[in-house]
């Protein structure tokens, strides 16, 4: 491989229109972290890239490296298009938020294969079954993302004093759950929410646990505060939409 070019797997996090017909991509790669690249002519109908540079594509790309921040995409082959997750509003939204969380938490070109594989797994699950778009499953993904980034919240004992009983709150500043004596800067974390966080960390992403709405809101807050205090990143709140039994269908007349 020449030093001016790079062949790598990548997931498209974002695709921004640029100039007349180009696209600027934010890619996440296993060995080079987040990479910016320009795809020239990608918006023309006859572009050889076709739909491949849309968000959520898992690709094998060739990049021509430039000295600046922006490389040039010279070819792209599909490893997974994730076509089914694009057919429902909830899976599409969950995929967008997953990619956004990765983009916010992992902004640099530091390699993190674990983050890459976690995101690839999340997109594969969302593509396979919309059940993975439910809030509990999205939170489990975020929690694992924090762990992959080294921002694991302490869940086994009080993050302030080490006490392992009477854990009743969560403090992003302290770095995890806290006991009743150390609750000053914390918000209340129910037993159910605590149990959810522990189970979500312990289980594979595909088997994310469930919890009630109130517990999930507390878990979401615990995850958001951890990201804010330790990664200095604001994560977008989950969408709280009314759920339907099935996704919308688009009918063809006649």
């Amino acid at each position: 491989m020449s030093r001016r070019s790079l062949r790598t797997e990548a997931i498209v996090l974002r695709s921004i229109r640029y100039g007349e017909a180009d696209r600027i991509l934010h890619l996440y790669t296993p060995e080079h972290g987040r990479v910016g690249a320009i795809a020239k002519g990608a918006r023309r109908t006859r572009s050889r890239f076709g739909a491949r540079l849309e968000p959520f594509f898992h690709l094998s790309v060739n990049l021509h490296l430039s000295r600046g921040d922006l490389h040039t995409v010279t070819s792209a082959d599909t490893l997974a298009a994730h076509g089914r997750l694009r057919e429902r509003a909830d899976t599409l939204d969950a995929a967008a938020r997953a990619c956004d969380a990765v983009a916010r938490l992992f902004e640099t070109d530091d390699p993190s294969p674990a983050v890459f594989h976690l995101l690839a797994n999340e997109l594969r699950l969302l593509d396979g079954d919309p059940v993975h778009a439910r809030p509990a499953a999205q939170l489990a993904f975020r929690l694992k993302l924090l762990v992959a980034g080294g921002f694991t919240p302490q869940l086994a004992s009080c993050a302030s004093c080490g006490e392992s009983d009477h854990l009743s709150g969560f403090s992003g500043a302290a770095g995890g759950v806290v006991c009743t004596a150390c609750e000053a800067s914390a918000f209340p974390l129910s037993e159910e929410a605590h149990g959810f966080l522990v189970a979500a960390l312990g289980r594979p992403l595909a088997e994310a646990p469930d919890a009630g709405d109130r517990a999930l809101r507390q878990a979401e807050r615990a995850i958001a505060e951890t990201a804010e205090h330790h990664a200095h990143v604001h994560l977008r709140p989950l969408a709280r939409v009314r759920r339907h039994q099935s996704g919308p269908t688009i009918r063809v007349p006649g």
Partner: protein
Amino acid sequence: MSTFAPPVQRLITELGKLPGIGGRTAQRLAFHLLRASEEDALALADAIREVKSRIGLCEVCFNLADGPRCRICSDERRDAAVVCVVEEPSDIIPIERTHEFHGRYHVLGGALSPIDGVDPEDLRIAELYRRVTGEPEEGRDPIREVVLATNPTTTGEATALHIAEQLREKAPQVTVTRLASGLPVGADLEYADELTLGRALAGRRALS
């Protein structure tokens, strides 16, 4: 410090704000205008001034209009029962060029993108629901079909799915359709991407 007289520099700066125009092109255009006849240069200035003072948005569909209603909404021959939803006024032009669509339009003013902070209330989606569920104008049929013609991009798809879901609840009697996705005419199958080709296969038609 600029090497040009302030009025020239100002022109270059203004031209440079246009999309796709870099510093060098802005300079080239500015010198072109300086060389052009006064008549030609002022015609451009007048055209800009006129478009800004006379063109607004259609009160029905939010297309560009030089009165309260755009030309399409004022055209009695257009079928008011079929509404084609697009992201931007510029998307109407290619659809009109096909001569395949005889209904009316609804311009959203963008596409949903939760991560960029573009939510339903930032687009003219509520206005669409009002149009679809409201009383039809005198002597007109109610809307029976909404064609979702947002771009086939991730944000365009998200917008179409969101609207389809809402319309199914708010106006179950209305047929909601989406532009078919497929292969560009004249392209080689060999170079087609998997998503496009997959959709083209899923949406195949019987040849009679």
